């Protein structure tokens, strides 16, 4: 095992870790905003009030780790490095927007269902987590879609035969 310090690799891994933290931050942002507003408004802090933050933190941490590992792996491949980072940036933008916007829309639209939601705490947590999971899935879809679109020309080129080589179709034509 090599113990030599590699600055470029350390920078890449540090950047991947920062991205993972950013993904975590945008997922927990809505819960933090709601919690800090209430606390700033004079609601006493309590463990019970941290339920939404806990759900968001679990989801955000999970997704952050997935992003970190993927970016760290993709960053080692020189050719796909820009594609990986561009796709990741798109995913982060989508995640930031959807994780907050979807919650605001869904909670606003479900205003008439407050009593049943408040009556059974798990339904509120399931709703909160479910909406954020949808945002994560959408961000993941954006990441994969953008990445595939970016690497498509390379893959086409790889699938094509080297210059001068005959294609299967050419060979068939010659045979006839």
């Amino acid at each position, binding site marked *: 095992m090599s113990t030599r310090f590699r600055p470029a690799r350390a920078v890449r891994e540090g950047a991947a870790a920062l991205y993972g933290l950013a993904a975590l931050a945008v997922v927990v942002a809505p819960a933090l905003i709601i919690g800090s507003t*209430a606390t700033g408004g004079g609601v006493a802090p309590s463990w019970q009030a941290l339920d*939404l933050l806990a759900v968001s933190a679990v989801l955000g941490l999970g997704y952050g780790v997935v992003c970190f590992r993927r970016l760290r792996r993709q960053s080692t491949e020189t050719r796909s490095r820009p594609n990986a980072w561009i796709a990741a940036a798109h995913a982060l933008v989508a995640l930031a927007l959807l994780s907050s916007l979807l919650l*605001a829309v869904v909670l606003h639209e479900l205003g008439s269902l*407050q009593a049943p939601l*408040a009556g059974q705490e798990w339904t509120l947590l399931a709703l909160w987590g479910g909406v954020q999971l949808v945002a994560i899935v959408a961000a993941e879809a954006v990441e994969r879609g953008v990445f595939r679109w970016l690497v*498509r020309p390379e893959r086409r080129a790889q699938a094509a035969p080297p210059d001068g080589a005959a294609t299967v179709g050419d060979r068939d034509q010659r045979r006839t």
Partner: protein
Amino acid sequence: MSLTRRQFLAAAAGVGGAALTGGVLADQVWPLLGREDLVPGRTPELVLPRQAWTTTPDRLTFAAVGDTGTGGRQAVAVATRMAQGYEENPYGLVTHLGDICYYGRIENRFEDVFLRPYGPLIEAGVDVELAIGNHDGEVYFSDARLDEIETELRLLGTPARYYRTSHGPVDFFYLDSSTPGLFGPGATDQVDWLDDALATSTSQWKVVCLHHPPYSSGRHGSTPGAEEKLVPVLERHAVDLVLAGHDHNYERTVPLDGITYVVSGGGAKLTPVRPSRITAAAASVLQYLHVEVDGDRLTARCIRPDGGLVDRFTLRAREGR
């Protein structure tokens, strides 16, 4: 490192999207999440002693709160503190300063926005009197909005759109400031009614309750026209205290021609307040006002959901009352 055409396009779209998303989040979505109270609140589980208050001809304790109509966690936190305030110093009256229902119609949301948060106080027999707010029927009337207000008045047992009640040494005058043109040149019925009602009031204390504040340093600010149309009537009859909501904060003015104006609109949501030259105390907090009248002294405390004291003030009854 050179970028391919696709990489360049995607990177440019990413930068544009990030800038746009950052703007939308910072300007719209995150402030909305902070400003509104969208997460349902847990039902308070307090059980209060029934009718534990004492009202005599010279003593009254009441609470004043406005803009409570979310049914969310912050609204429930304020309602729970009001119930705890009842435990410590019971009161038999809540003057509600309007906007009892947001995010829908009162028929559908009465349980969410009122019966559930205020259940302990309602079970204890506390009376609620409402000054109609703009979200209780919106500013511009239609048949549907009038129905909405009528439904609300029926559900709360409120006698009329504007009315007068007496409790111990205090006469309360409730206005419907959502009426179009209440402070404008055309509509004077309600102001005329107030003029007459105040003239015939013989109680030691006169308190006027309405939703739109005549004076405010909050987000909505002072209500246009109120200073010209309403304030002269209040001053002519030496009103002691004017309670209002609409701005989602707490503010007390210095006495203006002997009248103290209070905005107590922190019943569920929060908006900023910037103290002005007439402000004696102001804070952007969730709160309610706990008021004790004892003879010629009125003491009010503005209380946060965590029990913290935001403001405390004392008024003395006018000479000759």
